[in-house]
Structures are given as structure tokens and as C-alpha cells.
């Protein structure tokens, strides 16, 4: 709970109720929108919301969706997303969203109602041990048991959510605390007692890093979501640094958009379904410059085969991310923006310029790998290839302000491979937790933040069904979110693993009894569109863009297509598999590889 230094000095009797204090604190924290769902324990806050007009409330249809919407809002704006739910089931329904936000470092403050303080622990109606349940899935949480601590707790929650490595924070609010008079404490009067993560990198480390960079013959930038979290300025400095070095750069799934995909130095995403050239370059490099990525197992593959010859620089704001999976040579703890600034300054101070000679043969090697065209696919006349649908979606929306979210599965990987991002904060996907059902509510949150933008959830039919109730929310608030469903009638990613690792036995991965998505859209009062042939793809996409309404596109795609390239579990980067036409049939996977996820 809240540390009680500098206890509020307010001697006069407070004139606000707890609920009003909550709202005032949110306003002061810059909250414009709350995604929420009411219930008994939070009715006092809803009453206060009703009587003001500074904060807008979006009524979702499931509390999980409220958190994902807040995540979409946060990731597309750089602000803290805000959620309000009731006690008990309202709070427990947020757990998946909170875990998702924790894994992907998304700043979210989630206010949960709680039974009155005197009933806590009595198994009261709709009581749940919310701080207990959410302790491992939040960055921090609070249970407010004294009105005097209310304002402080909310301000601290925002501070913790957005500082250092961002993440979700829960503030549990017993109903009596919301109804009692409570003193208001302004944001500036609150200073957190302990939590002030450092932002400035150590200069000694910067010099060591630049030393390594300047001598590299086979360098690579490996950049992740940390740079996006650090903000557009960090991405701009990254772009300058990468250009001034002339080195190749690969991005993680979370990092897409941190560096322009259309630039020649970008060699594609890396990892399990990354490009051949990115993974090979990671394997063979001599200096790896990791900025804001965390050596996730989806990226490293088998650890003892991971980039065996390289010296590794790792920039991260979170010391616990450093030396966790991979031992590094130059750890740099700091905010990505400040660190990139320092790296760029040190690089220039030493008069370093584009290293044409030193890295010439390295680039030659990369270009040779690029000739594999590892993302290629063949679009025939009859069946729509999912990659083609995404490629067309990209081409036809290039000129617009477009935000993409995804669900989880094959379509997510194809979206990462075939939709290209030149700007940060336009790509929102559940990377760490891999939450099916994330994309649609996240898109809703993005659309709330950017009413004029084109917001598209590239979805799989199975994932989309997990939060489809949010259609109703979209209609209520006239959110023209586009659900672009790549309908392969399978949990495609599950089917792919069953094909590769479980003898083609498709246990429970076929999506039987799917709804008619066009009629479903209509039932909600939205627009439904369908394409079943390659020749229809463009028209459907154009129509989807044209109608200023909520749209579901049922893109009926090849059921048998698999995601390539693929580094199977238990393999190293240079054991990457290309699509079968070129690489021959796949050998059976090792027992050891099979137990991996």
C-alpha cells in the first residue's frame, strides 16, 4: 500500500468524495478516456463520471477488452491507458489484459472496485483478493484502505506505470473509500518514496559500445519495442545513428516501425518467423547492438547456438533484462532515447562515418542471403493466399494514416512480414503473451485515440471470435474499426505445429461451425464483406476503406498455407527452414524440440 511520508497536511475537512478525488486525479494525470464496465462496487465512480464532462467513458462489453483497448490507446499515443472495472468478476476478467500489458511493457492504470473495507476478507458478494490475484501480473498494485491515501495512490500508480520499463498498475478501491470524504492532493505534491528508475546511461559504457561498433566488420543492430516505448524521438535518433553507421538493422516483432521498413538498411524482422537474411546475419555477426530488445526465446532460438561469434552490446532500461538469457559484453542500463543520443554523440565525436570498406563483404553476404527471397509466396488464380491479401492491404492503404493491430496466429506473422511500417506506434500486436482476442479491442482503443485514422485488425477467425462482443461497442461509439479476418477455417498456427511436430494429426484445430461473418456484421449493424477469389481482393479492400463504418471482412484464404521461414523450437538461427519448394521436405523435429512451445 501507499507509503505515508509527507502525510497530507490538509487540516480543513475535505469537501470531495473519494470518487471525486479519483476523477480529479485522473484529470490531472491527463486522462481523457476511460475504458470500463460498471458494477456495484464502482457505482460511486460511475455516478461521479455522470456528473462531469472532462473524461469520456467507453463502455466495453467485457473487461478483458477494456484492458486491451487501453493498451491499444496507450501504444498508439504514448499515453497511459486507463481502465475502470468493478470488484470480483470485473477484476478477475482483467487478468489476461494485465498480463498482456506486463509482458509487452504497456503503461496501463486499472482501477478496480472492491467491497467495503470492513467486509474485506469475509467472502463478501463479489469479493476477490484483487491485489493478491494481480500481484504477479502487474508492475505494482495498491489497495487503498484510507481516504487520506487515495489521491497519492492514483498519482503514484501513473508514475509507476509510465516510468522506467512501463507496465500495468492496479489500484483497488473499496466502495466505502469512494463514498467517504477524502482530501485531494495535487500531482506535484506527490513524490514517490522509492521508485525513480535511472534514465541516463553510464558514459563509460557508451564509450565501450562505440569502441566495439567502430571496429565491427559484421555489425548488426537488433532493435526491439523498448525504442518504441521510449518514443518517436528515440526512433528518430535511432534512424540517424543507423544511417550514419551504414550498418544493417533488424527489428523484433515488437520493434516494427522503430526504423523505416522501406529503408535499404532494414533487413526484415528476425526470430522464429523472421527473414532468412536477418536470422543469418544475427548468427554470423561479430558485433550485435541490441537496443530495447530482450533476447526472447522466439528471437534467440537455441541459446547455445545463438550468435556464437559476436560481441554483444545490450541497451535496456530494465536491469533485470540484461544477462537474463544471454550473457552480454557491454551492458548499458538507460532510457533508449538518452542512450541513443549519447551513442550518436560519441560516434560523431570520434569522427566515425559510414563504414563502406570495413563492412563491404558483410553487406555482400547479406545481399546474397536476400536472394533467397524467404518471404516469397505464389499467388495462383483460384485460392487467395493470406500473404497476398496482406500485401494488397498494404499497397492499397499506403497513402493513408493506417494503424494495424493483430490477433495471434499465422495471420499475425504474415502481417508482420508483409505489412511494412515506416513509423513507430502504428503496429500493435500481442508479442509477449500471444493473446488471441487482443487485436479487435486494441483496434477499438486505437480508433478512440485516432478517430480519423484507418484502423485495421488483421485477424484470424478463431482469435477474432474471442472478443467479438466488442462489435457492439464499436457500433455504439461509431468506431469504424475494420476487422480484416484471414479466414482459413483453422487455428492455423496450431494446425501448422500439428503438421510439423505431431504427425499431421489435427486435434481440435479445425474451426467447425463458424458464423457467416457477413451476416454477423449485419446483425450488429455493421458492414460485412467477403472475398473468396484473388480477383475480388482489391475490390473488397477498397470498399472496406470507403465505407465509414465498422466493417468485418471475411477474407477466405488458403487453408493449408504455412508460415515460412521458420526456426523450429530447439534449432539455431542458421538452421532456419524455408518454404518447402526450395528446401525439400521437412525432417522430423527432435523430441527435445517437440516439448518446446
Amino acid at each position: 500500500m501507499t507509503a505515508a511520508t509527507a502525510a497530507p497536511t490538509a487540516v480543513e475537512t475535505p469537501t470531495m468524495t473519494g470518487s471525486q478525488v479519483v476523477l480529479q486525479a485522473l484529470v490531472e494525470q491527463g486522462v481523457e478516456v476511460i475504458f470500463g464496465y460498471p458494477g456495484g462496487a464502482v457505482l460511486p465512480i460511475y455516478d461521479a463520471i455522470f456528473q462531469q464532462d472532462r473524461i469520456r467513458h467507453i463502455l466495453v462489453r467485457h473487461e478483458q477488452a477494456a484492458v486491451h483497448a487501453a493498451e491499444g490507446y496507450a501504444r498508439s499515443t504514448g499515453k497511459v491507458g486507463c481502465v475502470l472495472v468493478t470488484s470480483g468478476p470485473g477484476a478477475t476478467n482483467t487478468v489476461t489484459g494485465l498480463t498482456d500489458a506486463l509482458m509487452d511493457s504497456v503503461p496501463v492504470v486499472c482501477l478496480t472496485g472492491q467491497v467495503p473495507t470492513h467486509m474485506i476478507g469475509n467472502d463478501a458478494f463479489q469479493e476477490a483478493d484483487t491485489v493478491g490475484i494481480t500481484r504477479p501480473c502487474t508492475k505494482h498494485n495498491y489497495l487503498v484502505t484510507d481516504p487520506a491515501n487515495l489521491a497519492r495512490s492514483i498519482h503514484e500508480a501513473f508514475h509507476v506505470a509510465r516510468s522506467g520499463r512501463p507496465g500495468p498498475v492496479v489500484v483497488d478501491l473499496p466502495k466505502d473509500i469512494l463514498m467517504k470524504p477524502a482530501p485531494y492532493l495535487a500531482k506535484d505534491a506527490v513524490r514517490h518514496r522509492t521508485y525513480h528508475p535511472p534514465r541516463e546511461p553510464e558514459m563509460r559504457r557508451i564509450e565501450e559500445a562505440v569502441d566495439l561498433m567502430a571496429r565491427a566488420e559484421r555489425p548488426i543492430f537488433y532493435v526491439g519495442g523498448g525504442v518504441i516505448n521510449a518514443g518517436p524521438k528515440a526512433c528518430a535518433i535511432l534512424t540517424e545513428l543507423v544511417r550514419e553507421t551504414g550498418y544493417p538493422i533488424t527489428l523484433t516483432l515488437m520493434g516494427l516501425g522503430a526504423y523505416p521498413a522501406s529503408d535499404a538498411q532494414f533487413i526484415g524482422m528476425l526470430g522464429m518467423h523472421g527473414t532468412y537474411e536477418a536470422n543469418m546475419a544475427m548468427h554470423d555477426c561479430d558485433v550485435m547492438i541490441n537496443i530495447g530488445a530482450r533476447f526472447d526465446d522466439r528471437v534467440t532460438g537455441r541459446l547455445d547456438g545463438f550468435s556464437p561469434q559476436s560481441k554483444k552490446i545490450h541497451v535496456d532500461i530494465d536491469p533485470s533484462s540484461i544477462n537474463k538469457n544471454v550473457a552480454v559484453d557491454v551492458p548499458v542500463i538507460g532510457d533508449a532515447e538518452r542512450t541513443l543520443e549519447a551513442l550518436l554523440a560519441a560516434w560523431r565525436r570520434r569522427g566515425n562515418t559510414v563504414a563502406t570498406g570495413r563492412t563491404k563483404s558483410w553487406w555482400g553476404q547479406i545481399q546474397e542471403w536476400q536472394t533467397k527471397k524467404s518471404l516469397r509466396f505464389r499467388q495462383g488464380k483460384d485460392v487467395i493466399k493470406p500473404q497476398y491479401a496482406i500485401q494488397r492491404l498494404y499497397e492499397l492503404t499506403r497513402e493513408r494514416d493506417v494503424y494495424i493491430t493483430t490477433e495471434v496466429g499465422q495471420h499475425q506473422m504474415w502481417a508482420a512480414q508483409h505489412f511494412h511500417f515506416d513509423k513507430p506506434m502504428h503496429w500493435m500486436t500481442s508479442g509477449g503473451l500471444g493473446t488471441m482476442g487482443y487485436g479487435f479491442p486494441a483496434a477499438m482503443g486505437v480508433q478512440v485515440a485516432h478517430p480519423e485514422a484507418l484502423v485495421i485488425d488483421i485477424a484470424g477467425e478463431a482469435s477474432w471470435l474471442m472478443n467479438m462482443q466488442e462489435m457492439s461497442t464499436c457500433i455504439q461509439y461509431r468506431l469504424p474499426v475494420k476487422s480484416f479476418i484471414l479466414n482459413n477455417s483453422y487455428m492455423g498456427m496450431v494446425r501448422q505445429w500439428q503438421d510439423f511436430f505431431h504427425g499431421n494429426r489435427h486435434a481440435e484445430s479445425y474451426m467447425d461451425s463458424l458464423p457467416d461473418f457477413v451476416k454477423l456484421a449485419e446483425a450488429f449493424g455493421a458492414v460485412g464483406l467477403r472475398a473468396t477469389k484473388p480477383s475480388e481482393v482489391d475490390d473488397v479492400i477498397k470498399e472496406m476503406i470507403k465505407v465509414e463504418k465498422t466493417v468485418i471482412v471475411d477474407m477466405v484464404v488458403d487453408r493449408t498455407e504455412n508460415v515460412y521461414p521458420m526456426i523450429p523450437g530447439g534449432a539455431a538461427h542458421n538452421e532456419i527452414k524455408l518454404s518447402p519448394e526450395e528446401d525439400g521436405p521437412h525432417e522430423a523435429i527432435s523430441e527435445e524440440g517437440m516439448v518446446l512451445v
Partner: protein
Amino acid sequence: MAQPVPQSSQALFSDAEQAAEERHTIVVLVDNEPGVLARVIGLFSGRGYNIDSLTVAEIDAARALSRINIVTTGTPLVIEQIKNLLAKLVPVHSVQDLTVEGPHIERELSLVKVIGDRERLVAALRIADFMHARLVDSTPESFVFEMTGTSEEIDSFIHLLEPVEVSRAGVVAISRGRLLLKEREQAPEP
């Protein structure tokens, strides 16, 4: 897609040789607030790290500060990870690894009970004397001894005494000399 149980913080794909495990004594200064111990314990249980001993008590009531002493074993990577994760917890002021930072003193308090006839009790008293344990309770058939010392000393006392019941407080530790456990430096608000 079942989740295999990771043996340690090593990622799932690692089949590299595990480095040898080390025992470390770590002290943590925290805000004395509800849930803080649960956060510390959850960090260990959630990631499969070992807690060999854990003690906690308030040490500064005016400022609501508690001190936690943790003895843990793990590979050097795991120990580093534990310290970083502890430091990351919001109510934590500072983390100190006494094992790394230099000479320190560790003590543990134990209460042990012996039951038996006169002969047995006399023998126990002799061992206790020799080990500098204190007799704190006696009846015609039983003794309770209090013994303070390093964990190893208590281990051998128990080994010699073969008591019927043992209660141990866990390790408390402090550095030797002038080295102090610092509170977290107050960085300026960004």
C-alpha cells in the same frame, strides 16, 4: 503447446552446461507496507528460485522501514537476476549482496527441545555448555536450549543434541566494518 517447466532462469532452449550454484546472503530494505513480503516471496516462487532462509522485521518504525534477509542458492546468472528483480520491486529501497560485497556476519537463533530421563538431560547439558547454548526452560523431563550462532554451528549443535523439536529463526546478517546498507538515492523527478 504445454509449457515445460524451466529449471532456472535459463531460457527454455538452453541445454548448455549449468554453471555451479552458489549460496548468497542478500539483504533488502523495503517499505513496511502490506503485501511487500508477498511480492518478495512471489518473485522467488513465480520463477522457481530457491529460498534457503528468509527473515523480516521492521527496523525503523518512524520511517516504516523493514529489513529482509534472504539466503538463496543459484547460478551466478540466477543470483544476478534475483538481485535485479528485487531492486525492481516498487517498495524496495535497496538491495545488497553481502556475499559479494565483502566480509559480513551471519547469525541465526534457534530453540531446541530435548526430552528424556536424567541421564539424557545431563548429557544434553554437557553438549550445550560446550556449544555455548543457554538453558531457557527446564522441567524434570525436558530442556529447551537457546543457541545463537552461524547456521553451521546450529546445524552441528542439532546434530550432536538430537533434539525432539527444533525452531529456527533464519539468518540475519550485517556487513562488517563501515559498509552500510544505503537507502535508494533519491533521483530527481524526470
